[in-house]
């Protein structure tokens, strides 16, 4: 890692994407990192999200809603990446004949403090709900909008996420 995230290099030729990129990269990268636990993957997800959104941005009625679209796209992409990693691990485990836990093997966990590791072990949608609520400080309704689900589903995801975190803490004591 070469520099602080605030340092942003934008190549000429990006047009309107450059301004959006400058404005949103840092927060999007941090969110993606908390969702995935992997800095390299987070950077890829943010780039993918920008590329996905740039095609739609011209059609957005409210350009001010870009941030919400970006968050929603990042969350959706993080599900896909998590699922791909689970599939890869499952097939590797089958090939090697080794049984692995589906939640092991996050390569970019820098400091393996317990809470961070526990957050990475809970299910993706539960983790997304906790990150959006407690890191991004979104309300339950805003979280529901980003996750594309109902208010009750958000409450359920957050409750189950916290329960899963506590269960891990009990198990590690």
């Amino acid at each position, binding site marked *: 890692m070469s520099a602080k995230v605030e340092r942003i290099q934008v190549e000429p030729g990006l047009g309107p994407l450059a301004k959006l990129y400058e404005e949103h990269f840092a927060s999007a990268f941090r969110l993606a990192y908390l969702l995935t636990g992997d800095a390299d993957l987070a950077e890829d997800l943010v780039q993918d999200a920008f590329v996905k959104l740039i*095609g739609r941005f011209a059609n957005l009625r409210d350009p001010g809603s870009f941030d919400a679209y970006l968050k929603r796209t990042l969350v959706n992409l993080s599900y896909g990446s998590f699922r791909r990693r689970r599939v890869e691990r499952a097939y590797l485990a089958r090939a090697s004949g080794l049984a692995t836990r589906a939640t092991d093997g996050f390569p970019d966990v820098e400091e393996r403090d317990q809470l961070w590791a526990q957050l990475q072990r809970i299910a993706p949608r539960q983790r997304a709900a906790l990150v959006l609520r407690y890191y991004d400080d979104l309300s339950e309704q805003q979280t529901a909008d980003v996750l594309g689900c109902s208010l009750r589903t958000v409450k359920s995801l957050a409750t189950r996420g916290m329960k899963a975190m506590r269960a891990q803490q009990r198990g590690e004591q």
Partner: protein
Amino acid sequence: MMDLERDLREMMARKADGLERTARATPELVRRARFRRAGTAVFSMAAVVALLVGGLAATRSLLNDEATAPAGKGQVAPSHASHRFTPADLPRVVLSRDDAPPDAADYGFDTGKRVFGFNFTGEARSRIAALEGFEQARLQTFYDHPRHNDAESYGDLYVASWAVVFDDSNTAATALEFHITSVGGKHDRWDDLRRSNPGLGDEGAVFEGITKGAVRPGDEPVVYYVWRINNLLLGAWAAGEYDPHEIRSIANLMTTRAADR
């Protein structure tokens, strides 16, 4: 409760603040963005052409007074009104252990009338027992945890695929109507699920919302597809940490297999 919430907030803020990374808007990103823009333009043109072609086809169909398949997003198979399904069709339509999601760690299998009503209680069970025209049913379930019935470690994902053969399309339609009423109604395991049209088969419904202990203790998100193709009733549903696209894919796959005979 508050301690864990506070600790989580502090930990995530610390992690995010300590993060170092250069934000690089590289030529590769420029190239991909331009490609995407071009792709979007091409897609928009293709969509206009498709709408025109679709409109022409619909007009021709109406002029010819042909029966048209029901509209709906994601429809993958037309109705096969002439094909009468039999119990021998069930193994190839319902998912098997070979089709297991990659994180499946345990399995369940069942046949018979209770397949159709295992997640209902009380009056609904009695009414299912009285349904006419039932021939055979098959259910395959997948869990992501080997101890899925242990309240302390019941895992995060439950996926089910089922199908029921009735003697004709009328009894299947009656059973579907009853099933939709039961799932969509308010009772002890489902609560005001949001209903929409899945656009599968001849008719059906997809429900989304919260189950209350239908699979495991406590509330959890659920998505439930149920649809009919002639005399065959099909279901695909999941509770917990499901990927909505994956459950839709399962429903599409079952529909395709039903058509592929």
